[in-house]
Protein backbone atom coordinates (compact mmCIF):
# COMPACT_ATOMS: atom_id res chain seq x y z
CA UNK A 1 0.00 0.00 0.00
CA UNK A 2 1.48 3.31 -1.02
CA UNK A 3 1.00 6.45 0.98
CA UNK A 4 -0.35 9.16 -1.24
CA UNK A 5 0.63 12.62 -0.01
CA UNK A 6 -2.38 14.77 0.60
CA UNK A 7 -3.26 18.27 1.71
CA UNK A 8 -2.92 19.00 5.42
CA UNK A 9 -5.94 17.55 7.19
CA UNK A 10 -7.90 19.70 9.64
CA UNK A 11 -8.38 18.35 13.15
CA UNK A 12 -11.73 19.85 14.19
CA UNK A 13 -12.79 20.79 17.68
CA UNK A 14 -16.32 21.40 18.95
CA UNK A 15 -16.02 24.98 17.68
CA UNK A 16 -14.86 24.20 14.14
CA UNK A 17 -16.75 20.94 13.54
CA UNK A 18 -19.90 22.65 12.19
CA UNK A 19 -17.77 24.40 9.54
CA UNK A 20 -16.19 21.15 8.33
CA UNK A 21 -19.47 19.21 8.51
CA UNK A 22 -21.06 21.92 6.41
CA UNK A 23 -18.12 21.81 4.02
CA UNK A 24 -18.71 18.08 3.51
CA UNK A 25 -22.22 18.96 2.33
CA UNK A 26 -20.90 21.73 0.09
CA UNK A 27 -22.26 24.52 2.26
CA UNK A 28 -20.67 27.44 4.07
CA UNK A 29 -21.70 27.00 7.71
CA UNK A 30 -20.82 29.43 10.48
CA UNK A 31 -22.35 29.89 13.93
CA UNK A 32 -24.58 32.78 14.88
CA UNK A 33 -24.69 34.28 18.35
CA UNK A 34 -28.10 33.87 19.96
CA UNK A 35 -27.40 36.81 22.25
CA UNK A 36 -26.73 39.59 19.74
CA UNK A 37 -27.02 37.98 16.33
CA UNK A 38 -23.49 38.42 15.02
CA UNK A 39 -21.70 35.64 13.20
CA UNK A 40 -18.80 34.05 15.03
CA UNK A 41 -15.47 33.24 13.38
CA UNK A 42 -14.97 29.47 13.13
CA UNK A 43 -12.49 29.25 16.03
CA UNK A 44 -14.45 31.41 18.46
CA UNK A 45 -15.69 29.72 21.65
CA UNK A 46 -18.01 32.66 22.33
CA UNK A 47 -19.36 35.64 20.45
CA UNK A 48 -16.50 38.20 20.20
CA UNK A 49 -18.96 41.07 20.71
CA UNK A 50 -21.23 40.05 23.60
CA UNK A 51 -19.30 36.97 24.82
CA UNK A 52 -22.47 34.88 24.77
CA UNK A 53 -21.68 31.17 24.41
CA UNK A 54 -24.87 30.11 22.66
CA UNK A 55 -23.80 29.88 19.04
CA UNK A 56 -26.00 28.02 16.59
CA UNK A 57 -24.76 26.66 13.28
CA UNK A 58 -26.29 28.36 10.28
CA UNK A 59 -26.01 27.65 6.57
CA UNK A 60 -24.99 30.84 4.74
CA UNK A 61 -25.39 31.95 1.15
CA UNK A 62 -21.78 31.24 0.23
CA UNK A 63 -21.54 34.77 -1.13
CA UNK A 64 -18.20 36.36 -0.30
CA UNK A 65 -16.25 39.46 -1.26
CA UNK A 66 -12.74 39.28 -2.67
CA UNK A 67 -10.43 40.78 -0.05
CA UNK A 68 -6.99 39.68 -1.21
CA UNK A 69 -5.48 37.48 -3.85
CA UNK A 70 -2.09 36.04 -4.74
CA UNK A 71 -0.68 33.59 -7.22
CA UNK A 72 1.76 31.45 -5.30
CA UNK A 73 4.63 30.13 -7.39
CA UNK A 74 6.03 27.77 -4.76
CA UNK A 75 4.37 24.40 -4.34
CA UNK A 76 3.11 23.94 -0.80
CA UNK A 77 0.38 21.41 -1.68
CA UNK A 78 0.83 17.92 -3.09
CA UNK A 79 -0.71 16.87 -6.37
CA UNK A 80 -0.73 20.29 -7.96
CA UNK A 81 1.55 21.87 -10.52
CA UNK A 82 1.87 25.44 -11.66
CA UNK A 83 1.02 28.56 -9.71
CA UNK A 84 -1.72 28.27 -7.13
CA UNK A 85 -4.25 31.08 -6.78
CA UNK A 86 -5.12 31.82 -3.16
CA UNK A 87 -7.93 34.18 -2.32
CA UNK A 88 -9.01 35.86 0.89
CA UNK A 89 -12.80 35.85 1.04
CA UNK A 90 -14.73 38.19 3.31
CA UNK A 91 -18.03 36.57 4.22
CA UNK A 92 -20.87 38.61 2.71
CA UNK A 93 -23.04 38.37 5.82
CA UNK A 94 -20.15 39.63 7.99
CA UNK A 95 -17.00 40.78 6.18
CA UNK A 96 -15.01 40.75 9.42
CA UNK A 97 -14.84 36.98 8.92
CA UNK A 98 -12.27 36.15 6.27
CA UNK A 99 -11.84 32.65 4.90
CA UNK A 100 -9.08 31.38 2.64
CA UNK A 101 -9.94 29.45 -0.51
CA UNK A 102 -8.28 28.23 -3.68
CA UNK A 103 -9.31 29.52 -7.07
CA UNK A 104 -8.41 26.62 -9.34
CA UNK A 105 -10.42 27.73 -12.36
CA UNK A 106 -9.22 31.30 -12.83
CA UNK A 107 -12.53 32.79 -11.65
CA UNK A 108 -10.73 35.73 -10.02
CA UNK A 109 -8.37 36.48 -12.91
CA UNK A 110 -8.76 40.20 -13.50
CA UNK A 111 -11.14 40.62 -10.57
CA UNK A 112 -10.97 43.69 -8.35
CA UNK A 113 -11.14 43.99 -4.57
CA UNK A 114 -14.67 43.56 -3.21
CA UNK A 115 -15.80 41.55 -6.26
CA UNK A 116 -18.66 39.25 -5.29
CA UNK A 117 -17.68 35.58 -5.45
CA UNK A 118 -19.31 32.34 -4.47
CA UNK A 119 -17.62 29.94 -2.13
CA UNK A 120 -18.07 26.21 -2.47
CA UNK A 121 -16.20 23.15 -1.35
CA UNK A 122 -14.06 20.67 -3.25
CA UNK A 123 -14.56 16.92 -3.46
CA UNK A 124 -12.91 15.21 -0.49
CA UNK A 125 -9.13 15.34 -0.37
CA UNK A 126 -8.26 12.93 2.40
CA UNK A 127 -11.20 13.31 4.76
CA UNK A 128 -11.77 17.02 4.24
CA UNK A 129 -13.62 19.20 1.75
CA UNK A 130 -11.75 22.46 1.26
CA UNK A 131 -13.05 25.87 0.26
CA UNK A 132 -12.91 26.81 -3.44
CA UNK A 133 -14.15 29.75 -5.49
CA UNK A 134 -16.98 28.50 -7.70
CA UNK A 135 -17.19 29.42 -11.38
CA UNK A 136 -20.47 31.14 -12.28
CA UNK A 137 -22.03 28.02 -13.85
CA UNK A 138 -21.60 26.00 -10.65
CA UNK A 139 -23.40 28.46 -8.42
CA UNK A 140 -26.38 26.93 -6.72
Amino acid at each position, binding site marked *: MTHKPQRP*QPVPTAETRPFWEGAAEGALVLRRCQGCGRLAPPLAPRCPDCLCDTLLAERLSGRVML*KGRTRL*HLQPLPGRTGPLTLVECAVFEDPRIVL*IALDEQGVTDGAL*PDAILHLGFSPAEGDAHFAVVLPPEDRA
Partner: protein
Amino acid sequence: MTVVIAGFGSSTLEKRSDRGIAAFALEAALAALADASIRRDEIDGYVGAPFATNAGSPHAEGGDEISLKTVAGLMGLRLTWGADLYRRYPTDMVASAAHALQAGTCRFVLGLRALYVAPGLDYATGTSGPVFGADQFTKPYGYTTAGARFAARAWAYMTRHGATRDDLFAIVDLSRRHAALNPQAIWRDKPLSLEDYSRGRMIAEPHGLFDCDLPICGAQAFLMCREKDLPQGATPARVTGFSGFARPEALWSMSGRGPADLKTAQLYDGFSSMVWEWLDGLGLTEPGGAPAFLRDGNGEYGARLPLNTAGGALGEGRLHGMGHLREAYLQASGRAGLRQQAMGPALVQVGPYDDSSFVLLEPVNV
Protein backbone atom coordinates in the same frame (compact mmCIF):
# COMPACT_ATOMS: atom_id res chain seq x y z
CA MET B 1 11.93 57.23 35.58
CA THR B 2 13.99 57.37 32.43
CA VAL B 3 15.20 54.18 30.82
CA VAL B 4 17.86 53.91 28.12
CA ILE B 5 19.37 51.48 25.71
CA ALA B 6 23.00 51.55 26.81
CA GLY B 7 24.56 49.49 24.06
CA PHE B 8 23.97 47.11 21.20
CA GLY B 9 25.83 44.15 19.76
CA SER B 10 25.64 42.03 16.67
CA SER B 11 27.07 38.72 15.62
CA THR B 12 28.34 38.28 12.11
CA LEU B 13 25.48 37.66 9.71
CA GLU B 14 25.83 34.59 7.50
CA LYS B 15 23.64 32.91 4.91
CA ARG B 16 24.55 29.45 6.22
CA SER B 17 26.84 28.43 9.02
CA ASP B 18 28.56 25.44 10.54
CA ARG B 19 28.22 27.16 13.92
CA GLY B 20 25.02 26.64 15.88
CA ILE B 21 22.51 29.29 16.94
CA ALA B 22 23.99 29.52 20.46
CA ALA B 23 27.33 30.65 19.03
CA PHE B 24 25.59 33.55 17.28
CA ALA B 25 23.56 34.35 20.40
CA LEU B 26 26.60 34.55 22.67
CA GLU B 27 28.61 36.49 20.11
CA ALA B 28 25.87 39.14 20.02
CA ALA B 29 25.39 39.16 23.80
CA LEU B 30 29.10 39.63 24.50
CA ALA B 31 29.28 42.37 21.88
CA ALA B 32 26.38 44.15 23.58
CA LEU B 33 28.05 43.88 26.99
CA ALA B 34 31.28 45.29 25.62
CA ASP B 35 29.42 48.06 23.81
CA ALA B 36 27.63 49.09 27.01
CA SER B 37 30.73 48.66 29.21
CA ILE B 38 28.88 46.21 31.43
CA ARG B 39 30.32 43.03 32.93
CA ARG B 40 28.55 39.70 32.62
CA ASP B 41 28.07 39.46 36.38
CA GLU B 42 26.16 42.76 36.42
CA ILE B 43 23.38 41.36 34.23
CA ASP B 44 20.35 40.61 36.39
CA GLY B 45 17.56 40.79 33.82
CA TYR B 46 16.86 39.18 30.46
CA VAL B 47 14.25 39.47 27.76
CA GLY B 48 13.97 37.47 24.56
CA ALA B 49 11.47 36.68 21.83
CA PRO B 50 12.60 33.39 20.35
CA PHE B 51 10.39 32.19 17.56
CA ALA B 52 11.32 30.85 14.15
CA THR B 53 8.54 32.01 11.86
CA ASN B 54 9.31 29.96 8.77
CA ALA B 55 6.53 27.55 7.81
CA GLY B 56 8.93 24.60 7.91
CA SER B 57 10.69 25.42 11.17
CA PRO B 58 11.30 22.55 13.62
CA HIS B 59 11.24 25.04 16.55
CA ALA B 60 14.17 23.20 18.12
CA GLU B 61 15.69 24.80 21.22
CA GLY B 62 19.33 25.46 20.50
CA GLY B 63 18.59 24.39 16.93
CA ASP B 64 16.70 27.22 15.22
CA GLU B 65 15.44 28.94 18.38
CA ILE B 66 17.20 29.86 21.60
CA SER B 67 15.47 30.87 24.82
CA LEU B 68 16.29 32.40 28.19
CA LYS B 69 17.06 29.06 29.84
CA THR B 70 19.70 28.09 27.31
CA VAL B 71 21.27 31.55 27.05
CA ALA B 72 21.42 31.95 30.85
CA GLY B 73 23.01 28.52 31.22
CA LEU B 74 25.58 29.01 28.49
CA MET B 75 26.51 32.51 29.70
CA GLY B 76 26.44 31.81 33.41
CA LEU B 77 23.85 34.53 34.03
CA ARG B 78 22.36 34.91 37.50
CA LEU B 79 19.06 36.63 36.85
CA THR B 80 16.58 38.32 39.15
CA TRP B 81 14.07 38.44 36.31
CA GLY B 82 13.87 37.14 32.81
CA ALA B 83 11.20 36.32 30.25
CA ASP B 84 10.78 35.16 26.69
CA LEU B 85 7.91 36.86 24.90
CA TYR B 86 6.12 34.23 22.84
CA ARG B 87 5.64 35.28 19.20
CA ARG B 88 6.45 38.91 20.06
CA TYR B 89 8.91 41.39 18.62
CA PRO B 90 12.05 43.30 19.60
CA THR B 91 9.87 46.36 20.17
CA ASP B 92 7.93 44.40 22.80
CA MET B 93 11.24 43.30 24.34
CA VAL B 94 12.14 46.96 24.89
CA ALA B 95 8.77 47.64 26.54
CA SER B 96 9.11 44.64 28.87
CA ALA B 97 12.66 45.54 29.82
CA ALA B 98 11.54 49.11 30.53
CA HIS B 99 8.80 47.83 32.81
CA ALA B 100 11.22 45.63 34.76
CA LEU B 101 13.68 48.53 35.13
CA GLN B 102 11.05 51.04 36.12
CA ALA B 103 9.67 48.63 38.69
CA GLY B 104 13.14 48.30 40.19
CA THR B 105 13.20 44.55 39.60
CA CYS B 106 16.63 44.66 38.04
CA ARG B 107 19.40 47.03 36.97
CA PHE B 108 20.82 45.69 33.73
CA VAL B 109 18.63 43.84 31.25
CA LEU B 110 20.07 41.90 28.35
CA GLY B 111 17.74 41.63 25.34
CA LEU B 112 18.56 39.00 22.73
CA ARG B 113 17.08 37.65 19.51
CA ALA B 114 18.80 35.04 17.36
CA LEU B 115 17.80 33.52 14.03
CA TYR B 116 19.11 30.48 12.25
CA VAL B 117 18.72 28.69 8.95
CA ALA B 118 18.84 24.99 9.73
CA PRO B 119 20.19 22.89 6.84
CA GLY B 120 18.15 20.35 4.93
CA LEU B 121 14.73 21.87 5.53
CA ASP B 122 12.18 23.20 3.11
CA TYR B 123 11.73 26.38 5.07
CA ALA B 124 9.32 28.06 2.76
CA THR B 125 6.56 25.56 2.35
CA GLY B 126 6.05 23.55 5.48
CA THR B 127 3.51 21.00 6.26
CA SER B 128 1.41 18.01 5.48
CA GLY B 129 -0.43 15.80 7.95
CA PRO B 130 -2.87 16.99 10.60
CA VAL B 131 -3.30 20.71 11.24
CA PHE B 132 -4.75 22.21 14.40
CA GLY B 133 -6.27 25.47 15.55
CA ALA B 134 -6.02 28.42 13.18
CA ASP B 135 -3.75 26.35 10.91
CA GLN B 136 -6.74 24.24 9.80
CA PHE B 137 -8.07 27.26 7.89
CA THR B 138 -4.75 28.34 6.36
CA LYS B 139 -2.22 25.54 5.82
CA PRO B 140 -4.44 23.35 3.59
CA TYR B 141 -4.42 26.30 1.16
CA GLY B 142 -0.71 27.10 1.34
CA TYR B 143 -1.59 30.43 2.94
CA THR B 144 1.32 30.34 5.41
CA THR B 145 3.78 29.78 2.57
CA ALA B 146 6.19 32.46 1.37
CA GLY B 147 4.27 35.36 2.84
CA ALA B 148 1.14 34.56 0.82
CA ARG B 149 -1.00 36.59 3.19
CA PHE B 150 1.19 39.66 2.79
CA ALA B 151 1.16 39.18 -0.97
CA ALA B 152 -2.65 38.96 -0.97
CA ARG B 153 -2.80 42.19 1.00
CA ALA B 154 -0.25 43.86 -1.28
CA TRP B 155 -2.40 42.91 -4.30
CA ALA B 156 -5.42 44.60 -2.74
CA TYR B 157 -3.42 47.71 -1.79
CA MET B 158 -1.84 48.04 -5.22
CA THR B 159 -5.12 47.44 -7.01
CA ARG B 160 -6.98 50.00 -4.89
CA HIS B 161 -4.31 52.69 -5.00
CA GLY B 162 -2.77 52.15 -8.42
CA ALA B 163 0.66 51.16 -7.14
CA THR B 164 2.83 48.92 -9.29
CA ARG B 165 5.82 46.62 -9.12
CA ASP B 166 7.92 49.70 -9.84
CA ASP B 167 6.77 50.99 -6.46
CA LEU B 168 7.88 47.74 -4.83
CA PHE B 169 11.21 48.04 -6.61
CA ALA B 170 11.62 51.54 -5.17
CA ILE B 171 11.57 49.99 -1.68
CA VAL B 172 14.00 47.21 -2.57
CA ASP B 173 16.28 49.68 -4.32
CA LEU B 174 16.33 52.03 -1.33
CA SER B 175 17.10 49.08 0.96
CA ARG B 176 20.02 47.94 -1.18
CA ARG B 177 21.45 51.45 -1.45
CA HIS B 178 21.19 52.02 2.29
CA ALA B 179 22.68 48.57 2.93
CA ALA B 180 25.77 49.70 1.04
CA LEU B 181 26.67 51.84 4.08
CA ASN B 182 26.06 49.00 6.56
CA PRO B 183 29.27 46.95 6.78
CA GLN B 184 27.52 43.82 7.98
CA ALA B 185 24.55 43.86 5.61
CA ILE B 186 24.17 40.68 3.59
CA TRP B 187 23.44 42.74 0.47
CA ARG B 188 25.94 45.55 1.15
CA ASP B 189 27.81 45.15 -2.14
CA LYS B 190 24.81 44.15 -4.22
CA PRO B 191 23.00 47.06 -5.82
CA LEU B 192 20.00 45.85 -7.76
CA SER B 193 18.91 47.31 -11.09
CA LEU B 194 15.29 47.36 -12.18
CA GLU B 195 16.25 44.77 -14.80
CA ASP B 196 17.76 42.48 -12.13
CA TYR B 197 14.68 42.99 -9.99
CA SER B 198 12.34 42.16 -12.85
CA ARG B 199 14.28 38.99 -13.65
CA GLY B 200 13.88 37.67 -10.10
CA ARG B 201 11.45 34.77 -10.14
CA MET B 202 7.95 35.28 -8.84
CA ILE B 203 7.33 33.97 -5.32
CA ALA B 204 3.81 35.07 -4.40
CA GLU B 205 2.47 37.76 -6.72
CA PRO B 206 3.07 40.67 -6.56
CA HIS B 207 6.18 39.71 -4.56
CA GLY B 208 9.17 38.40 -6.47
CA LEU B 209 12.38 36.98 -5.08
CA PHE B 210 13.87 40.37 -4.19
CA ASP B 211 10.75 41.54 -2.38
CA CYS B 212 11.44 38.88 0.27
CA ASP B 213 14.08 39.31 2.96
CA LEU B 214 16.79 36.68 3.09
CA PRO B 215 16.74 34.19 5.99
CA ILE B 216 20.12 34.28 7.70
CA CYS B 217 22.05 33.00 10.69
CA GLY B 218 22.67 35.83 13.10
CA ALA B 219 21.86 37.43 16.42
CA GLN B 220 21.70 40.88 17.93
CA ALA B 221 21.49 41.97 21.53
CA PHE B 222 20.95 45.14 23.53
CA LEU B 223 21.61 46.29 27.07
CA MET B 224 19.04 48.43 28.90
CA CYS B 225 19.25 50.22 32.25
CA ARG B 226 17.90 53.25 34.08
CA GLU B 227 19.56 56.42 32.88
CA LYS B 228 21.11 57.03 36.30
CA ASP B 229 22.81 53.61 36.16
CA LEU B 230 24.43 54.25 32.78
CA PRO B 231 27.97 52.84 32.91
CA GLN B 232 30.98 55.03 32.16
CA GLY B 233 31.79 54.82 28.48
CA ALA B 234 28.34 53.77 27.32
CA THR B 235 26.36 55.87 24.82
CA PRO B 236 22.65 55.96 25.62
CA ALA B 237 19.46 56.42 23.68
CA ARG B 238 16.41 57.22 25.73
CA VAL B 239 13.29 55.05 25.43
CA THR B 240 10.58 57.70 25.31
CA GLY B 241 7.61 55.73 24.05
CA PHE B 242 6.20 52.37 23.12
CA SER B 243 2.80 50.99 22.16
CA GLY B 244 0.97 48.16 20.49
CA PHE B 245 -0.50 48.46 17.02
CA ALA B 246 -4.11 48.69 18.14
CA ARG B 247 -3.39 51.95 19.99
CA PRO B 248 -0.62 53.66 18.04
CA GLU B 249 -1.72 57.00 19.53
CA ALA B 250 -0.31 55.77 22.84
CA LEU B 251 3.17 56.09 21.33
CA TRP B 252 2.58 59.81 20.86
CA SER B 253 0.86 60.44 24.19
CA MET B 254 3.59 58.61 26.11
CA SER B 255 6.43 60.40 24.34
CA GLY B 256 4.79 63.79 23.90
CA ARG B 257 5.83 63.58 20.26
CA GLY B 258 3.93 63.36 17.01
CA PRO B 259 4.57 62.02 13.51
CA ALA B 260 6.02 65.38 12.40
CA ASP B 261 8.79 65.10 15.03
CA LEU B 262 10.33 61.93 13.58
CA LYS B 263 13.87 62.24 12.22
CA THR B 264 14.20 58.63 11.03
CA ALA B 265 11.94 55.59 10.70
CA GLN B 266 12.82 51.92 10.73
CA LEU B 267 9.77 50.12 9.36
CA TYR B 268 9.55 46.36 9.22
CA ASP B 269 10.13 44.99 5.73
CA GLY B 270 10.10 41.21 5.77
CA PHE B 271 8.32 41.75 2.45
CA SER B 272 8.74 45.02 0.59
CA SER B 273 5.06 45.97 0.58
CA MET B 274 4.95 45.90 4.40
CA VAL B 275 6.73 49.27 4.47
CA TRP B 276 3.56 50.94 3.19
CA GLU B 277 1.45 49.74 6.11
CA TRP B 278 2.59 52.09 8.83
CA LEU B 279 3.53 55.03 6.66
CA ASP B 280 -0.21 55.12 6.00
CA GLY B 281 -1.18 53.60 9.35
CA LEU B 282 0.62 56.16 11.50
CA GLY B 283 -0.65 59.01 9.38
CA LEU B 284 2.78 59.83 7.95
CA THR B 285 1.07 59.57 4.57
CA GLU B 286 -2.57 59.68 3.48
CA PRO B 287 -4.21 56.26 2.98
CA GLY B 288 -2.67 54.90 -0.21
CA GLY B 289 -0.08 57.66 -0.24
CA ALA B 290 2.97 55.66 0.84
CA PRO B 291 4.14 54.56 -2.63
CA ALA B 292 4.15 58.12 -3.97
CA PHE B 293 5.86 59.36 -0.79
CA LEU B 294 8.71 56.94 -1.41
CA ARG B 295 8.75 57.46 -5.16
CA ASP B 296 9.24 61.17 -4.47
CA GLY B 297 12.37 60.41 -2.48
CA ASN B 298 11.10 61.21 1.01
CA GLY B 299 12.73 58.09 2.47
CA GLU B 300 16.23 58.90 1.23
CA TYR B 301 19.16 59.98 3.40
CA GLY B 302 18.77 63.63 4.27
CA ALA B 303 15.17 63.74 3.03
CA ARG B 304 11.97 64.27 4.98
CA LEU B 305 11.92 60.89 6.73
CA PRO B 306 15.03 58.76 6.11
CA LEU B 307 13.75 55.21 6.05
CA ASN B 308 15.43 51.90 6.93
CA THR B 309 18.74 53.68 7.02
CA ALA B 310 20.81 50.51 7.51
CA GLY B 311 19.03 48.72 4.69
CA GLY B 312 16.20 47.13 6.66
CA ALA B 313 15.63 43.40 6.51
CA LEU B 314 15.65 43.57 2.70
CA GLY B 315 19.20 44.90 2.73
CA GLU B 316 20.70 43.63 5.96
CA GLY B 317 19.06 40.22 6.25
CA ARG B 318 16.19 38.74 8.24
CA LEU B 319 16.72 39.65 11.89
CA HIS B 320 13.00 40.01 12.64
CA GLY B 321 13.29 43.62 13.62
CA MET B 322 16.43 43.49 15.77
CA GLY B 323 18.32 45.19 12.96
CA HIS B 324 15.65 47.88 12.82
CA LEU B 325 15.89 48.45 16.57
CA ARG B 326 19.68 48.52 16.46
CA GLU B 327 19.69 51.11 13.70
CA ALA B 328 17.21 53.31 15.59
CA TYR B 329 19.51 53.09 18.63
CA LEU B 330 22.55 54.03 16.54
CA GLN B 331 20.69 56.95 14.95
CA ALA B 332 19.30 58.22 18.26
CA SER B 333 22.65 57.92 20.02
CA GLY B 334 24.58 59.56 17.21
CA ARG B 335 26.61 56.46 16.43
CA ALA B 336 25.40 55.62 12.92
CA GLY B 337 28.65 56.76 11.29
CA LEU B 338 28.35 57.35 7.55
CA ARG B 339 24.61 56.66 7.83
CA GLN B 340 24.02 59.25 10.54
CA GLN B 341 20.93 61.37 9.96
CA ALA B 342 19.61 64.32 11.92
CA MET B 343 19.46 63.29 15.57
CA GLY B 344 16.03 63.22 17.13
CA PRO B 345 13.07 60.93 17.65
CA ALA B 346 13.80 57.61 15.93
CA LEU B 347 10.83 55.37 15.22
CA VAL B 348 10.97 51.57 15.15
CA GLN B 349 8.03 49.45 14.05
CA VAL B 350 8.20 45.67 13.99
CA GLY B 351 5.57 43.15 12.94
CA PRO B 352 2.83 42.70 10.37
CA TYR B 353 -0.17 44.93 9.69
CA ASP B 354 -2.40 43.10 12.14
CA ASP B 355 0.11 42.62 14.94
CA SER B 356 2.87 45.22 15.28
CA SER B 357 4.41 47.26 18.03
CA PHE B 358 6.32 50.53 18.13
CA VAL B 359 9.21 52.06 20.05
CA LEU B 360 10.45 55.64 20.03
CA LEU B 361 14.08 56.32 20.92
CA GLU B 362 15.56 59.76 21.45
CA PRO B 363 18.97 61.31 22.10
CA VAL B 364 19.92 61.94 25.71
CA ASN B 365 20.70 65.62 26.10
CA VAL B 366 23.98 66.03 27.93
